[in-house]
């Protein structure tokens, strides 16, 4: 209760009193203006001040006479003299404005007397105004604390400078810092450079730290980005008194324009708080939670010695409270409420806590319980049990503290006695929460017949019409509010998080990362054991070209919680360097720790062992015998491209052992229509011109096919592709499906100029055809020179005639002898050339035309020789056309001479023919 002067007591004793009230508001210039006189009239119509134990601060609501003519308190009336400080030349600055400081004073005097000594009963700030009806509402001084949001998490009770606790900011990469801030490394796990140390920002240039955490020195300074951090000392574990930490929190989180708030602790609880991180919340919530953990209260209370409201950290006088005042029946009006409700009674309490001084082998504190109960209350009301389970990280970590908490809760909740609500007949401005008052019964008892002693849980002063009336709400003994304990019991306490900590990679001598090569990549394994204090979330995996590369977005491979990562798409055989960066979230802000040392590795190559032994790798196309299938449905490297008759539908891979090459072969089921197409992998080809020759290459395609059922034709195509694998042209070979039995089909194609790749394409000719056919053993190869046939003859050019050249030499007789291609041979006649030679003169004017014949039929290989004068070598050749031959075929050359010019002597002709296979 506020101290009462002798005069106050005398007035109260008189049984009558006069009551005056005035309201002051600070104007824009910082001068308090008395609203009862400032405008030349008393503008205060009514004023209500109320405070309840559950609420952190009192409130005041003031109703004003808005205006008298042009003298207007309304904040939006810019022309009002009140809003210009009665200076027409001053800037518009409303007097009644949000956040303006307000104080309310009362003067209690003998009846019929004017105000004498004023007593301040409220100080706060305007929180709202309403021009309709003209009221404004205020909260007490802690209203500002309720709106100061803690913008940054800080670690408390973890470091001291000159014996005083200092708050620590956890290092954040790319964070912004100011000189004199104390910094706690995020990377401070066992073996980390930041373990057990803290730093101070001693200089800044840009004020922005580097993007990764620096290596923390054991003395001196380190520069990270534009910030210099200087070693201060080692962190502490003993903790600091709670009031010191409360003051730290108040100092660290002042909003713009807020004055300092100094905490007043009449007597210290002697409670040491250990390291914790103050999470982001309103300052008032933060400090109240800390205070309430041991059942203490923190609120603005009037301090007589300094004559002002001060933020006071105090314990309610729970044991044998002093009776502050006793009210006679003439002092209070009719009782409005006198009741008991079981709802807020708890008379048996259990507190579960983690004992910091009794640890399990792995360092985890043992969970213990403290139980207290009030026997008298249990006998009266029955057992009403409640439990508070403190978090692992709670500051309640000893038997003493847990017992104190349990007893506070028990004291506040076990015995309400009664809840009393009444109005006093006179204003009682001296009331404070937790005052312990007695109420005397009347001569004829109405509600009780013995004095009732109860503690104030709420009060309201209402001033109107020259009267101050005080309403009181009272219950049991002094408390911090029974519901506050019961809410904790119901919902559990909010955890206080451990200081944020990242674990990095211990030094180079203890490799924490193993990197092994995989095909075209590598596998990185981080040997990481989670530190229970660390807030590891995931790792950044970086691969760079040099050992000192900077891990940034260009080198990032993955961010994952996994400690193993497969790195792919690296250049086989190339040297690379690997780094990992630990990261986590501090609140919502990403944190990056110190990057690991670079680990060198070489991206792996595939070795022969990776290849399946089943396909014939010596021949093209790949898997031409259909021997391998990854999924058992599709033949590897063969693609069904129409999108309708896919593998397993239009095309079937058959593995019944009836194939020719190995056991597999394929079937084309034509019921899928003519879009059923199958395509091989591409194969590299050489058109012949690209290697400086003027001759095209020839490619031979062989395969086996077996008609299954039905009739119809199909095509075997060779698609020629250019260097960009774009289609140049297609050569087709049409097959009739009517033949039976496995047939070896051979055909040959010459690539067009510019062809660099080819692929095989199988398709049906006509959509309506309905047949089945099996294929096996596709081979595609460039024809290579195999043998050379020489033809020769002595011819008489003087007549037009046809010669049939025979092999054997240049001087063989002219006759139609046709050589037979020996078995086994399948190939092409390619590159046919002739040399002319005469007996008596130049080949000269006679031109000879040569046509190669197979089995007596002309082929497309035609060339001429002649018209070149002189002896050897008159030359002619055909390198473009070719003819397919196989064993048993006969080959001959038809030579036709043409007469031109003067007759000449007979000539010898030598003709060379290259067979390729």
């Amino acid at each position, binding site marked *: 209760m506020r101290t009462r002067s002798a005069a106050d007591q005398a007035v109260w004793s008189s049984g009558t009193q*006069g009551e005056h009230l005035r309201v002051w508001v600070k104007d824009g210039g910082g001068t308090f203006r008395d609203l009862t006189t400032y405008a030349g009239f008393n503008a205060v119509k009514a004023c209500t001040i109320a405070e309840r134990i559950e609420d952190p601060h009192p409130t005041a609501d003031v109703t004003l006479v808005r*205006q008298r003519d042009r003298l207007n308190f309304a904040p939006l009336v810019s022309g009002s003299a009140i809003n210009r400080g009665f*200076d027409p030349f001053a800037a518009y600055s409303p007097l009644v404005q949000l956040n303006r400081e307000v104080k309310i004073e009362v003067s209690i005097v003998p009846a019929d007397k004017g105000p004498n000594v004023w007593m301040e009963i409220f100080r706060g700030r305007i929180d709202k105004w309403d021009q309709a009806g003209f009221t404004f509402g205020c909260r007490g001084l802690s209203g500002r604390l309720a709106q100061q949001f803690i913008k940054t998490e800080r670690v408390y009770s973890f470091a001291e400078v000159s014996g005083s606790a200092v708050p620590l900011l956890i290092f954040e990469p790319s964070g912004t810092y100011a000189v004199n801030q104390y910094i706690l490394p995020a990377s401070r796990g066992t073996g980390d450079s930041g373990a057990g140390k803290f730093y101070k920002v001693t200089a800044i240039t840009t004020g922005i730290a580097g993007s990764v955490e620096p290596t923390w020195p054991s003395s001196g300074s380190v520069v990270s980005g534009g910030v210099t951090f200087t070693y201060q000392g080692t962190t502490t574990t003993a903790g600091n008194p709670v009031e010191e930490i409360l003051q730290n929190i108040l100092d660290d989180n002042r909003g713009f324009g807020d004055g300092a708030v100094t905490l007043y602790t009449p007597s210290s609880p002697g409670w040491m708080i250990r390291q914790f991180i103050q999470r982001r919340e309103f300052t008032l919530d933060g400090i109240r939670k800390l205070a309430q953990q041991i059942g203490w209260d923190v609120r603005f209370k009037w301090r007589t010695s300094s004559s002002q409201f001060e933020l006071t950290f105090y314990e309610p006088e729970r044991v044998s409270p002093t009776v502050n005042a006793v009210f006679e029946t003439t*002092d209070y009006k009719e009782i409005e409420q006198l009741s008991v409700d079981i709802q807020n009674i708890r008379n048996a309490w259990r507190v579960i806590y983690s004992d910091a001084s009794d640890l399990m082998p792995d360092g985890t504190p043992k969970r213990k319980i403290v139980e207290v109960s009030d026997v008298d209350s249990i006998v009266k009301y029955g057992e009403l049990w409640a439990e508070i389970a403190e978090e692992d990280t709670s500051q309640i970590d000893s038997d003493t503290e847990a017992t104190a908490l349990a007893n506070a809760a028990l004291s506040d909740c076990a015995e309400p006695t009664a809840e009393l609500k009444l109005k006093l007949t006179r*204003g009682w401005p001296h009331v404070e929460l937790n005052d312990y008052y007695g109420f005397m019964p009347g001569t004829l008892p109405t509600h009780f017949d013995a004095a009732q002693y109860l503690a104030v849980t709420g009060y309201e002063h209402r001033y109107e019409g*020259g009267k101050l009336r005080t309403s009181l709400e009272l219950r049991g003994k002094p408390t911090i509010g029974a519901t506050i304990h019961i809410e904790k019991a119901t919902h559990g306490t909010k955890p206080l998080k451990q200081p944020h900590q990242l674990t990095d990679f211990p030094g180079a001598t203890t490799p924490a990362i193993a990197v092994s090569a995989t095909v075209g990549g590598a596998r990185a394994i981080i040997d990481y054991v989670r530190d229970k204090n660390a807030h590891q979330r995931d790792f950044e995996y970086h691969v760079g070209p040099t050992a000192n590369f900077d891990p940034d977005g260009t080198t990032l491979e993955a961010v994952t919680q996994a400690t193993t990562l497969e790195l792919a798409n690296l250049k086989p055989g190339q040297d690379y360097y690997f780094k990992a960066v630990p990261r986590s979230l501090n609140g919502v802000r990403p944190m990056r720790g110190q990057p690991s040392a670079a680990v060198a590795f070489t991206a792996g190559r595939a070795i022969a062992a990776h290849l399946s032994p089943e396909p014939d790798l010596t021949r093209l196309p790949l898997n031409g015998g259909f021997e391998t299938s990854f999924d058992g449905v599709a033949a590897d490297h063969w693609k069904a491209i129409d999108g309708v008759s896919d593998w397993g539908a239009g095309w079937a891979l058959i593995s019944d052992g009836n194939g020719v090459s190995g056991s597999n072969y394929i079937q084309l089921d034509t019921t899928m229509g003519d879009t059923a197409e199958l395509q091989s992998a591409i194969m590299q080809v050489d058109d012949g011109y690209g290697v400086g020759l003027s001759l095209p290459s020839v490619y031979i395609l062989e395969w086996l096919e077996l008609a299954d059922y039905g009739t119809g034709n199909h095509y075997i195509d060779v698609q020629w592709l250019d260097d960009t694998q774009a289609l140049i042209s297609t050569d087709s070979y049409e097959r009739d499906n009517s033949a039976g039995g496995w047939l070896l089909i051979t055909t040959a194609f010459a690539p067009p100029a510019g062809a660099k790749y080819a692929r095989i394409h199988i398709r049906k000719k006509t959509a309506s055809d309905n047949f089945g056919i099996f294929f096996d053993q596709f081979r595609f190869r460039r024809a290579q020179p195999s043998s050379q046939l020489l033809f020769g003859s002595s011819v008489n050019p003087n007549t037009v005639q046809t010669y049939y050249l025979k092999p054997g030499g240049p001087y063989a007789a002219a006759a139609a002898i046709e050589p037979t291609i020996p078995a086994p041979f399948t190939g092409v006649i390619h590159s046919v050339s002739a040399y002319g030679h005469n007996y008596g003169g130049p080949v000269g004017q006679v031109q000879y035309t040569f046509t190669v014949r197979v089995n007596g039929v002309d082929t497309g290989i035609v060339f001429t020789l002649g018209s070149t004068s002189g002896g050897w070598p008159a030359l002619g050749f055909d390198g473009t056309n070719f003819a397919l031959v196989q064993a048993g075929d006969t080959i001959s050359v038809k030579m036709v001479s043409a007469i031109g010019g003067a007759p000449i002597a007979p000539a010898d002709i030598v003709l060379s023919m290259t067979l390729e296979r």
Partner: protein
Amino acid sequence: MPVSYSYGLAPGTSLPDWYAINGIDLAPIASAKDLPQEPKRDIGGVEDASDGSKVVTRIARKLDLTFTSIPLLSADAVAFEGLICGLGEHWSFDTSLYGSKGLGPSGTIDAIQTAGTPKFGAGVLRLSATTGTITFAGAAQGPGGTFRKYTVMVWRRESGVWHHYIVTSSGHKWLDGVRADGTSTTWLVVTAVGDVTIVNTAGATQDYDDLVVLPYEIVDYWGEIFGVATSAFSNLPDLNASGLLVTEATTRIVTGNCTSMTVMMARPSGYSLQRDMKRLSVEIFQV
């Protein structure tokens, strides 16, 4: 002394004031037929305690006054109603350029409020030489912003001596309480919309004090009273009450209201039959 009305509660001329408002005695217009009432009003209260006993928390008792006037000439009724209701505005210039109802200057040139040597209170309006001008827009407008008639009263310091000027909309003027319609008041301008401007074209600074602008014309005999006042005009709408009924040592601050006017025909002494005579019902409250 009242000259127009000598037939109310105070028919004589030598009696002290009965209940004067800003020096204008209301006795001549108070009707003896409906006796004036002087109700008492408690500030604070009396509460019933839980045992039924009465607890007094009174801080003051206020003395109010209600009466009914005799029939008044229409023009005089308007003047008395305006006086009692506290119409108009008073500028003390003690601390600012704002009037008692909050009207500030709408335009100034070299015009300031300063301590000076005030006629009353703690400050004066000072207009600089040659250029000083101050305008109070709408100062002479009545309630609701209508402008009909006016009376402007101000103290003007000339050669170290304060002189009191009264100017009405019909051209009646008083200098130091003496009717002097020929007095030059070119330095005082009231426009057709009720803006009041004071200008100083003289070669020296000019001080003014205790400006009163009323949205009605005063009854002529008031000029002789206001012009020789020894204290400042009241801070309208508050009024200064004095007289026999005011028993406090100091002036009582009151505020008044005319709750109704009764219109009647009458023939006052010396007049023909007047069909627009009015009786006022007056309430005066102690502030």
